[in-house]
């Protein structure tokens, strides 16, 4: 349950362009300020996602990543800069986020989030953003979100292809990530380090994740729940396809039943 604290004059000014939007207003901005958002991955997607969330006023951002900043990251991972090479990504990221918005509270987890730590972070979050770079983490995050019935904003990008969706696991009819792509032993892991990735693609997808997360927090508009948005960055074409629950899903079958 969110606890809303009235905004002071600085905050009213800082967030005035949000407050002017009738879909957000003071009440919506207070919901953003009171929220706790978990961002798993401080790389290509996590960078723009966390930056927009921090700038927009998310009260507590939890940034998780066990990696350090590498020179090859800087082409797209805009949370980090040249002086950050060799530092933990979460520390480099926290510094950037606090420069953007000194009022943000940024908690960091400098490890690959899994097991009890993952469960605890998901349980405490209002919205979870999957900005990770491997299928094992994606499925672990999804399982935790199913268990704790948390909305999951999932993004992925490689080469010129991007995907983004919302799995609003508070809703009985919503599919989970495993309904879309079941976990399999022969899953083909395609990594940016091998295949490359177009820098702005991660910005577009990560910013879309931030937009969906804010809409979920505010409760405005229509989210991507039940839809998968696909971006072909070469043709610059978006496509949207419909997703449904898999009644035989190994993760969420039976969810919502009494």
């Amino acid at each position, binding site marked *: 349950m969110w606890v809303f604290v009235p905004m002071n004059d600085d905050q009213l000014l800082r967030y005035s362009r949000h407050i002017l939007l009738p879909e957000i207003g003071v009440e919506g901005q207070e919901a953003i300020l009171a929220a706790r958002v978990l961002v798993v991955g401080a790389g290509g997607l996590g960078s723009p996602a966390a930056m927009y969330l921090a700038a927009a006023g998310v009260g507590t951002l939890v940034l998780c990543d066990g990696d350090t900043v590498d020179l090859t990251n800087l082409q797209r991972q805009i949370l980090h800069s040249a002086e950050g090479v060799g530092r933990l990504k979460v520390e480099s990221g926290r510094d950037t986020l606090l420069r953007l918005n000194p009022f943000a509270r940024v908690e960091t987890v400098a490890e690959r989030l899994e097991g009890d730590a993952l469960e605890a972070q998901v349980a405490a979050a209002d919205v979870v953003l999957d900005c990770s770079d491997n299928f094992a983490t994606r499925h672990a995050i999804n399982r935790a979100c199913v268990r704790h019935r948390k909305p999951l904003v999932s993004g992925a990008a490689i080469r010129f*292809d991007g995907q983004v969706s919302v799995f609003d696991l508070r809703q009985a009819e919503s599919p989970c990530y495993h309904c879309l792509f079941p976990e399999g032993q022969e899953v083909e892991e395609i990594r940016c380090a091998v295949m490359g990735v177009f820098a702005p693609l991660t910005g577009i997808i990560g910013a879309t994740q931030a937009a969906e997360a804010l809409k979920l927090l505010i409760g405005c508009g229509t989210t991507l729940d039940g839809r998968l948005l696909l971006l072909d960055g070469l043709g610059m074409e978006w496509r949207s*396809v419909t997703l449904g629950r898999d009644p035989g899903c190994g993760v969420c079958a039976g969810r919502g039943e009494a």
Partner: protein
Amino acid sequence: MSIRVVVPGQLFSYTDGQSRLVAEGATLGEVLEDLDRRHPGLRFRVIDEHGEIRPHVRFFINHQPALALSRALADGDELLVVGALSGG
């Protein structure tokens, strides 16, 4: 039965970098067989040796999920092939 097919970047090595293709077939299975004749090797990337759709691949016909190779298509339908992406 002419079907418009859109494939992701993961399959470009089979399609000379083309994302928009055309194929013939009355079912999803037939369309994939025709695609494989035109772009050898493509079908095995999406269908395994047991004839099952690979778990990291999904098909959508006119934006709706197509879960079986027996799914019928009509002339002018659009088949979208989607592969799971893990990059972040």
